[in-house]
């Protein structure tokens, strides 16, 4: 390991680091694996690993290359979903109301990604982050366009820019039906839930975390006239003085009758824009500044320093798998500076994160820092699925539904992921559910690979078992077994076994034990492969 003593590097160069920390970098191969899993969701290939091993200074070149990889956009959608929580598995309405037949899982996945595809559109085109709240368009694929009544160009496929047909003002994410379906508001709530969503999602400021104490008088007052209590009680006003003017922007999306069908309930109602008068009585405004509608709100949010800070915080927390604390404030500010210096484009700030010593750390000798910064990262369910798929060509599907990414299916939550509703914070400490998910996925993938590769009638190349045949046995083909097991470990984990590594003999012994028990070459290899696919270097990176 290369020990780096980093002294007072704050403000020096472009690597935000804590002062006086001692960090040992991961070995070069493992650095590249971490980088690849974080940016692309898969391990690097053998040639990439050889390149980094030959010269660790190639790391920065890989950072630049991986940030241009299309899979990076998918990873960033996953990172921002941890804040927006739109991937819930909900379709909100029956897709048949929009003339969509078939599986609702795909519909739910598409609807959830309306805001997240704007995020990746911004990143892909190096647009300023302010586009998120100022874009004069939304993002839609044919499914979203059909469900939400969005113009969609002819003769194209996939995600495209589009505009709502109901004439609503466009202000990026603030105009999206998906967001207001995910964060609904009815009756006396009067868009306050939505206002808090805007604050929490875009400014990282959750009103609900503010401590309040309601005395008996306030409760009695609430009973008689809630709006009067909110407007006159000092405790209530500590939040509502800014929350309610924010809420006032969203009455075009406010439908009193929740029994309406899809088309009515998702149509923007300009005639309702002034309905704040019937509820809080507070004019639209943004933290004391009066506004004239949704688009001006978007502009003011874009100018708010908290907006850029929140985006950076989301990226840092999502990529480094930790909650930032007040102690991280200087580091966060450095990244924000990088963000601002680069016109609020995302790739430079992500690069700064990926280049930092803390990101590349394999060991941290400062105890307090080691308790804040994990030197072991845990794959998300979707990363686990994509790593396994890249290695084995196997995807765990159930009646066509991707078991690891569909929120409603449950496997993702079992493996430490979120479902956007009940489970909103990922778990990075592998639980018993994670171990079972990894085991059963490994068993399923291993069986597919084994039956494919050991099929004597196979005409295409082997996926993984290229060094052995169905006729080979450890006692007669030891060299082939040795070569095969070493190949499997390196292919699966990205790390070659050492010369005297016990794993080779152990896997041969495992093969022999299973063969004695089951009498099946396929089951023996499937078991060996499944055990290797359960290696901690798959789950951790």
């Amino acid at each position, binding site marked *: 390991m290369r020990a780096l003593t980093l002294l007072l590097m704050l403000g020096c160069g472009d690597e935000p680091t804590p002062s006086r920390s001692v960090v040992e970098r991961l070995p070069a191969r493992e650095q590249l694996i971490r980088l690849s899993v974080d940016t692309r969701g898969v391990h690097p290939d053998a040639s990439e690993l050889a390149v980094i091993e030959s010269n660790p200074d190639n790391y920065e070149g890989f950072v630049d290359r991986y940030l241009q990889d299309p899979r990076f956009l998918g990873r960033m959608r996953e990172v921002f979903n941890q804040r927006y929580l739109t991937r819930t598995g909900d379709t909100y309405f029956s897709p048949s109301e929009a003339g969509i037949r078939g599986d609702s899982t795909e519909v739910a996945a598409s609807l959830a990604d309306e805001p997240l595809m704007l995020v990746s559109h911004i990143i892909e085109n190096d647009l300023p982050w302010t586009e998120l709240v100022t874009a004069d368009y939304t993002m839609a694929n044919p499914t979203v366009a059909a469900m939400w009544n969005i113009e969609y160009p002819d003769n194209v496929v996939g995600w495209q820019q589009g505009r709502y047909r109901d004439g609503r003002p466009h202000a990026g994410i603030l105009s999206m039906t998906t967001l207001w379906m995910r964060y609904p508001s*009815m*009756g*006396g*709530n009067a868009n306050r839930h939505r206002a808090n969503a805007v604050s929490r999602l875009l400014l990282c400021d*959750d*009103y*609900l*975390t503010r401590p309040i104490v*309601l005395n008996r008088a306030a*409760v*009695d007052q609430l*009973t008689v006239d*809630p709006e009067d209590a909110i407007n006159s009680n000092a405790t209530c006003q500590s939040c509502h003085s800014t929350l309610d003017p924010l809420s006032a922007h969203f009455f075009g999306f406010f439908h*009193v009758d*929740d029994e309406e069908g899809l088309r009515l309930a998702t149509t923007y109602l300009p005639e309702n824009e002034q309905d704040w008068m019937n509820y809080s009585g507070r004019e639209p405004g943004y933290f004391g500044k009066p506004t004239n509608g949704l688009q001006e709100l978007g502009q003011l949010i874009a100018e708010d320093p908290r907006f850029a800070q929140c985006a950076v915080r989301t990226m840092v927390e999502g990529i480094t798998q930790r909650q930032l604390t007040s102690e991280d404030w200087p580091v966060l500010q450095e990244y924000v500076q990088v963000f601002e210096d680069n016109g609020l484009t995302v790739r430079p700030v992500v690069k700064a994160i990926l280049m930092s010593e803390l990101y590349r750390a394999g060991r941290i000798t400062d*105890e307090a*820092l*080691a308790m804040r910064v*994990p*030197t*072991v990262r845990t794959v998300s369910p979707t990363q686990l699925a994509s790593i396994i798929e890249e290695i084995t060509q196997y995807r765990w*599907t*159930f*009646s066509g539904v991707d*078991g690891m990414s569909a929120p409603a*299916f*449950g496997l*993702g*939550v*079992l493996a*430490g992921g979120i479902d956007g509703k*009940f*489970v909103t914070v990922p*778990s*990075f*400490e*592998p*639980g*018993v*559910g*994670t*171990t079972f*998910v990894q085991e*059963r996925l490994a*068993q*399923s993938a*291993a*069986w597919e690979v084994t039956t494919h590769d050991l099929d004597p009638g196979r005409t295409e190349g082997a996926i993984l078992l290229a060094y052995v045949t169905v006729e080979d046995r450890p006692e007669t083909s030891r060299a082939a077994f040795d070569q095969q097991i070493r190949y499997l470990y390196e292919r699966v984990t990205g790390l070659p076994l050492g010369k005297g590594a016990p*794993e080779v003999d*152990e896997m041969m*012994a*495992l093969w022999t*034990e299973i063969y004695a*028990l089951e009498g099946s070459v396929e089951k023996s290899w499937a078991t060996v492969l499944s*055990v290797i696919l*359960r*290696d*901690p*270097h798959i789950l*951790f990176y």
Partner: protein
Amino acid sequence: MKLSRRQLVSGSLALGAASLLPSARAEVGERKFLFFFAGGGWDTTAVFDPHYGSEDVDMEEDSELGEVGNLDFTGGPNRQRVSRFFRKWAGKTAIVNGMDCHSVGHDSAANFVMTGTSASSYSDWPTLIAASSRNDYPMPHVVFSGPAFPGTRGETVVRAGGGRLISLLNGAIVGQSDAPAPLVSSPADRIADAYAYRRVARFAEARMEGLGGARALSLQDNLERAMELEGRRFEAGLDDLGTDMRAQALQAIELFRLGLSRTAMVGISGGWDTHANNVRQGMQFEDFFAVLDEVMERLSTTPGTYKPWMSDEVTIVALSEFGRTPLLNGGNGKDHWPFSSALVVGAGVAGNRRVGATDEGLVGIPVDFATGLADDNGDMLGCENLGVTLLRMASLDPGQFLPGVAELDALKASV
């Protein structure tokens, strides 16, 4: 003294890969808890706290007062399942009314109701109960759905992700995918586990420090738990139930029966945040009480591990983060209200009892904690009082967790 899981596993691994893993250890008899949670805020007047005749409370049209023993509830033709439940199980059921949840924000109120505080570092009641058990449960607290506040005891909580857990545990899921694989035989599974475990143990041993070390150790610890769980014989058909509230509740009972878990959380189906169209509450309560009835039937006909029946060993607790305003708003909905109710059923519960009360405006009033009756000289009932009572019913000392909070003695059976 309870043996650590690692002691057991390493002991059996030392005997060789084939002899392998520990079978279930003898379980010390202790009460288990099944929690239900209605996320969004339930309308307490829709079942638990009827206020017919009050001008300050809008009761559901076509409903009428139901009474069984000392319990009164909102009944009528649209509450047939609710009424049926109380007719069958009133003797084991207590209703808690007028409970102050201290907040009308969903997240903060849920935090209060489940932990008794607004602090995120506090563990919720089921986590505390599971973490403080005398038994070493492989999955101490299983969250099928609904809220989880693990606080500093994250290792206690298993997030089950709907109803997939059993098919993962028994391996059936490998045969359910689009490319089904054969079920791995139990002996082969155990052998493979032992090899997988060795590699994980080596990995963890090399990374003992800081947060990274904690993650590696968590994998090792939970792989040990998984090895204990594998091969357990679950009741046939349990993984074919689906993933809904009923399936989750029945699977929770099975985990209790097998001594795999002490507490479980199941979210109550439905959209409870009825700022409009509040009449949905009644229908959702009907669905919930149908499941509750089936759960009680199951518990009452399943032999217990230290008492004759599981219904003598399991306490059911149903909660929501807050209640709803007494009067309908302009959209026929009801908004957030800090006073709520709870339903507590089964083992250790003083049944046929109503504890706490609200005034004609649905505001909580002082209560004598010994009798549960309204008393001007009593104390205001808060969600924390219910919580510490549950801890006591689980044989814990609540003072270790929330010192100074009074227990609701009226809720506890006098045994």
